[in-house]
């Protein structure tokens, strides 16, 4: 009898660790070990299959002398910035509007959230047709009588990347909206009422009280959307297939084609490491500041 208590205590202590151990192991091997392996490959002369020699930073030099990689980096920057800004902004706006206790909120929420249920392949293919000047928007408007209307961004190398932004924003805004809506519902109504009694206008209340209180929701949205932006691969392949003339190349599509199509595994690994460093440079400080503050707050 007297020994059973420490035993159950011990089980209680060990159970969480036991349960977490397999997933921790999987993460260690599948994520961190392979990051190290990719780093190693990026310093080797690997072409069709991995080769474990050492050529210094040659593959990085080769990578940065490839104009297509410059396009990819530039596109990632343009795409992520616009995608994050538009999706967050529109998502927040829609969430605030939906939060005004309107009648068909449930239906509207479902409609806005529905694109998220589609895969990026479907979104990409659909928008490929919508944006095609001979099939989609331009043709419809032309047929309606406005014959001089031109909307052929998808055929213009300088504008094609914005087409990708449009499709991605269309797909992800509902998702951002859902998270913001949940955040809004979590805000105590009495705070808003108190501000109203003080005579604050509704826009002012939202700007100075509600939006700052949504900080945890912003954290989730930004982290999840950045991750969608950086791994945006299927959308590009379905929508533009990196065309026209590699104008919508992204680091992820570059890495895939270098590794699997062009037998340049070393260059592919180098580009993967560059992506990792870019992500780390942006996300780590942000996460650090956000998580540190919340810990201080406790």
């Amino acid at each position, binding site marked *: 009898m007297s020994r059973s208590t420490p035993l159950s205590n011990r089980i209680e202590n060990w159970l969480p660790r036991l349960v977490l151990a397999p997933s921790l192991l999987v993460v260690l091997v599948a994520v961190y070990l392979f990051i190290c392996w990719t780093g190693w490959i990026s310093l080797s002369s690997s*072409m*069709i*299959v991995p080769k474990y020699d050492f050529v210094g930073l040659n593959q990085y030099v*080769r990578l940065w*002398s*490839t*104009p*297509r990689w410059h396009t990819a980096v530039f596109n990632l920057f343009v795409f992520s910035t616009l995608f994050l800004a538009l999706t967050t902004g529109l998502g927040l706006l829609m969430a605030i509007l939906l939060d005004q206790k309107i009648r068909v909120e449930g239906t509207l929420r479902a409609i806005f959230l529905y694109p998220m249920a589609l895969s990026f392949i479907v979104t990409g293919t659909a928008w*490929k047709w919508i*944006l*095609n*000047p*001979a*099939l989609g928007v*331009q043709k419809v408007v032309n047929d309606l009588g406005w014959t001089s209307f031109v909307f*052929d961004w*998808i*055929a213009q*190398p300088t504008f094609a990347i914005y087409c990708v932004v449009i499709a991605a924003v269309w797909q992800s805004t509902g998702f951002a909206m859902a998270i913001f809506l949940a955040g809004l519902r979590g805000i105590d109504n009495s705070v808003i009422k108190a501000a109203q009694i003080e005579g604050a206008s509704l826009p002012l209340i939202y700007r100075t009280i509600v939006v700052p209180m949504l900080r945890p929701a912003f954290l989730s949205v930004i982290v999840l959307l950045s991750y969608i932006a950086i791994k945006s691969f299927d959308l590009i*392949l379905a*929508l*533009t*297939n990196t*065309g*026209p*003339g*590699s*104008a919508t190349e992204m680091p992820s599509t570059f890495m*895939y*084609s270098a590794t*699997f*199509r*062009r*037998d*340049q595994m070393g260059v592919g690994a180098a580009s993967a490491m560059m992506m990792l460093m870019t992500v780390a440079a942006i996300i780590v400080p942000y996460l650090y500041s956000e998580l540190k503050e919340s810990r201080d707050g406790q």
Partner: protein
Amino acid sequence: MTKFKRILLAAALGLPFAGQAMAQTKIEGLHVWTSASEVGALKVITDKLKTMGFEWQDSAVGGANGANAQQALRTRVAAGNPPAVMQFLGFEGLGWAKEGVLRSLNDLYAKNGWKDALPPVMLQFLQQDDTFFSTPINMHRQNWVWANKAVFDKAGIAIPTSWDELIASAEKLKAIGVTPIAMSDESWQIEELFESMLIDVNGPDFYKKAAIDLDETALSSPEMIKTFELLGKVRGLHDAGFTGRDWAAATNLVANGQAGMQIMGDWAKGEFLAKGMKPGADFLCFPTPTATPNYKFVFDTFGGFKIKNADIEKGQDAVAEAIMDPEVQKKFNLIKGSIPARLDVPMDDFDDCAKRSFSDRVAAIKNNAIYGSLTDGFAVEPRFSGVFQDVVGKFFVTDMSAEDAVKSLVDGINNAR
């Protein structure tokens, strides 16, 4: 009694083993063929294999121009579980042969005299250091023009004999309200056009220097600039809806008369035939116009991975023998749209386009004017042909000058060396 029982037992135990020995050994083949004509053509090989006592276990991985299959293969070789037989295009097989993972077929080649039955220019893709590792089933020709005969007649166009004439006829097609050239903004489809111009305008010897030997003087020469300028003339000769168009969709534009012609390999022929159109009567096939006739090829081969299992090795030999069987090559290519890899297959049952391809091949072999297609991976390794693709694709869709294009081509090739 006990003895009888024991015999019964032995029989009962032995039978399944006997049955297993009788059952056909399964030979797994990884390939990229998924369209109706491709699957139908493959069945010719697998049916033959069945009569030889082996069952084909099909692993088709389609999509992404074969990149998906390459990815699947890499994973499986890395895991030590390669397929018995793999389809190879261009340099893919050579890459694996250099890694030393492919089985030698030298005995079969020597025994059956296959080497002499094949176009000599093919051999460099079938062997590595004098070891044959794969067998070819077909040969596609890359440099074809596919045209709608009714549209050509309406515009009063004859078959062009030079690229300048072809571009002039395209202007005529534009004048009667037809899309002159059916194409896509996909870089590889533009490159099909570019590489035809490269060899047609500058001759086969220049093509070899520039696109196969990657000679820097040839790559940066005025001839190269001239070729890009010629490609630039095609910029306005397509329709606005060419973004992301599939090659087969472009072929269909020609087939139903919305466009005049398409420059594409003879895998396009199947699209016309599927609509019941007849070569010569409904659609025209002619080589891209040139003063120096040439032949640019693409072909499919199958090679076997080293697997320590005598039955599978026998099966791999059977696959090679089935592929090299003249009757199989004939039936296969009647469905696939290409011509037999073997030079000794009678062509009587084939259509006019295939007959033309066959006789042009014989002439090109004699004149040293037969070379691998750049776009489809038979000229240089993928890391180099990718550079051509990048530059040509970008040049076509932007207002890049021919000089800049040549400069970035040379820089890109040097960077990939």
